Structures are given as C-alpha cells and as structure tokens.
C-alpha cells in the first residue's frame, strides 16, 4: 500500500493548489493574530476561518483530485493491487497533504500565539475537519460518474453543512422556543461536524456565558471531559462512516 501512497503524495505536493492553500492560511492566521490586541479575539476570527475555509477547500480539492486521478486509478487497477489498498492510499495521501497544509499554514501560528488547551483544541478540530471533509469528498466523487455533478454535489454539501444546517437549527429553535428542546439540540449538533467543532471551541472560551439557558445546558455537556470525549468520538465517526461507505462502493464500481 505504501508504494502507491508515496506516488500520491508526490503528485499532490507537486500540485500548486495545496501550496497556495498553505500560503493563504499562513497569511490569514498571521494577519489575524497580529491585528487583534488580545489573542482570544484572534482565536475567534481563526475559528470562523477554519470552519468555513477548511471544509470548502478540502471538499472541492479532493473531489477534483479524485476525478483527475481516474486514469491513475484505472492504471493501478490492472496491476496486482487490491482495490482496498488503492482507495486507502488515495485517502491517506490526500489527508496527509491537506492536513500538513493546515498544520503548517494555521496550526503552528495558532500554537505560537495561543499555547493553551484552547489553541490545541482549535488545531485538532481543524485537522479533524480536514479529514472529515476529505472523506465526504471521496464519497461524493465515487457516487457520481460525471465530474460536473460530483463537484456540484460537493458544493451543495458544503453549503448544507456550513450555512443551511444552521438555518434549520435556528428555525427549529424559534418554532419550538416554548418547549424544552435544549438536550435535543445537543443531539442535533452531532449531525453536523462543523457545528460540533464550533460548539466545542466556543465552550472552551468564555463567550458561552452570552448564550443564555441553551448555553448553560451546552456547557453542562460540552464543558465536561465526558462530553468532549463523546464529541471527539462523533467527529471520528464522521471520518469513518463516509470513508467506509466510499470504500465499499469503490470495491464494486465498474471502471
């Protein structure tokens, strides 16, 4: 498996988009931290960048990369290699390259300006989001044969998780404001990795005091070590489930 993985990494690194992504993240994180006078304000801005940019870049780049690799996959399939190994190599190659880009571009800067548990959480969440949305991109790419459809599906998925999902949650909160749905909201937030990461980070900041009763319930859950463990477990499931689905589909796919 590591034989192919090596070539995938070399191929992605040669692709200038990943380098460009690293530089953009580096520019953004450096300017955010040097503009704000307190690092916690900087962290809040970084959080928003991570929650929006990282999923978008991972989804779009990985989807396009998978389509552009169709010749590569075809070539490998005629060789004595397992389909499992080919798919794993592509996934590991992508998350290594994108994870490295995130760590170099944003992770190191965050850890320098905010060397605390909160800073570490932010970096881990950024890395997990990278892995999650790469896995989702693989699923989108394997499900649709047509390149335009696949990229469209990725954009719709990003819109859903980054924007539409929050709209639905807000709508539910207003509609059922009279009912005690706070605990239910915790469950709902598990259905969106971006929301889950956002709540996890916000709960480590002091701004959760501004969130009223819901904030208090959230704090009771996401503020405890058990809650954090469950949340990270859920994020890891968010990597596993799309990836395993894509792997199972790929094993039966005709090329």
């Amino acid at each position, binding site marked *: 498996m590591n034989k192919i993985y090596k*070539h995938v990494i070399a191929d992605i690194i040669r692709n200038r988009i990943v380098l460009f992504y690293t530089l953009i993240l580096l520019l953004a994180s450096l300017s955010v931290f040097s503009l704000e006078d307190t690092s916690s304000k900087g962290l809040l801005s970084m959080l928003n960048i991570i929650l929006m940019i990282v999923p978008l870049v991972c989804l779009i780049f990985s989807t396009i990369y998978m389509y552009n690799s169709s010749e590569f996959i075809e070539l490998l*399939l005629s*060789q004595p290699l397992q389909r499992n190994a080919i798919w794993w190599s592509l996934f590991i190659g992508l998350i290594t390259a994108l994870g490295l880009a995130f760590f170099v571009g944003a992770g190191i800067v965050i850890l320098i300006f905010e060397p605390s548990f909160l800073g570490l959480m932010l970096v881990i969440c950024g890395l997990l989001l990278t892995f999650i949305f790469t896995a989702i991109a693989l699923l989108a790419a394997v499900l649709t044969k047509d390149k335009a459809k696949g990229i469209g599906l990725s954009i719709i998925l990003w819109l859903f998780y980054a924007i539409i999902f929050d709209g639905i949650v807000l709508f539910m909160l207003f509609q059922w404001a009279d009912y005690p749905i706070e605990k239910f909201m915790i469950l709902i937030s598990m259905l969106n990795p971006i929301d889950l990461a956002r709540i996890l980070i916000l709960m480590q900041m002091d701004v959760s005091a501004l969130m009223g009763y819901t904030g208090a319930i959230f704090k009771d859950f996401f503020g405890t070590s058990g809650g954090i463990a469950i949340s990270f477990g859920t994020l890891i499931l968010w990597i596993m489930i799309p990836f395993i689905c894509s792997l199972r589909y790929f094993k039966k796919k*005709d090329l």
Partner: protein
Amino acid sequence: MIITEHISKRFGNQQVLNDVHITCRPGACIALIGPNGSGKTTLIKSILQMVIPDTGKVLFQGEDIAGQWSYRGKIGFMPQMTRYPENMSVGEVMSMMIDIRKDQKDLDEELIEQYHLKEIYPKRMGTLSGGMRQKVGACLAFLFQPDILILDEPTAGLDPLSSEILKQKILKEKAKGKSTIISSHVLSELDEMITEVIYMQDGQVLFQKTLEDLQQETQEVKLSKMIAKIIA
C-alpha cells in the same frame, strides 16, 4: 488458463455481456473480434476485474478470481487508447510500475530499447501523442514477462514500423509458449499470429474456433475472408 463461465453484465438497460463463455488454453493466441460495441473491451475488463460481472465467474489457472488480486501479476495488459496520469512523466510511470511489482526481478526491456522509450522518459504523459502512449502501454505489458498477454487494439494509432515491431514481439512471446488475447479490427495483421478466433456480437460469443477449423469450413486462407464467409 482463463475460462469465463457464463458471465453477464448489464450497464443500465443495456446488456453488454450476455452469457459469455470462453476458454483460453495455455499457449493459445486468440483473436477477439467483433463489431464496435460488441462487448470485447468489457469482456477483457471483467477478466481484469475492472468491471465486475453481474453473474457468472472467471477462472484464472483454475481458480475463481472473485476477490483475488495477485493473479494480475501474471497478466500483461495493454489497454485500448491508453490513458495515463497526465502530469506524471514517462519515466515516473515506468518506475512506479516497477515499484508495484518489485518481486518481479527479471524485466524484459526489449521493446523499450526498440522503441527508444528512454529518450522520452522526461516527457509528461499529457504531452505525448496517442501513438506514443500506445508504445508506453506496449512496453509496460511486456515488461514483467507475464504468462498471458491481453492486448486491446494494440496497433491502433501506431505507425507501420512500430506496429511491425510489436507484431514481431508478440510472435516471439508466442514461440515461448505464452498465451495471448488480442482484440483488433485490423484482421489482416492477425493472420500470421493467431491460433484461435472468438467472434462476439451484441454481447454474445457467436463462435470460438481454431484457425484450422475455420480454414476447413470456409476453404479460405485469409482471416478476413473466413470471417466474411462465416458471418454471411
């Protein structure tokens, strides 16, 4: 060596392969012919498991290939209109393939030399012409001394000189007792190479016959004439 047992494959509402049953004995050189869209490439792809048949199974040296992958190390495959990763150089593709089949030490570089492939090693795959890519495909198919060669329209896009080199190479391997399956539309160049003919139409095998049988039946010398007579 290779037996496909009643394989069928359907793409959407189109039946591409319908109960295909063929046998490839060791040492046989089989011409796989038939009109466009008759399922030749799909049949070849199902032997390599690039396409998974809906029903039926493929036996390679007596064993069912379902879920297997190491058997592909014994196959040299040259795809039709070869597609390669565009931003890899020829040299990189070659070294990657050698890397994948590391345990195969004894490499056959005869074609690489005859085609002067080393001269284009630094070139990117995307910048090569169709014929050049075919040459890379041919070199890769023969490189690992496979027991069986599967060539899907090998001479399409090759210049006359290069296709003659390829033909001589196929004859040489045939003399060594290797099996070959060639799909082609140019019947005239198959004449001297093949021992058997499989004719496919609409996803079905119309017949699989040896060249001698065909000659006796039709009293013709040229393959193209024989096929024309049988089909008519």
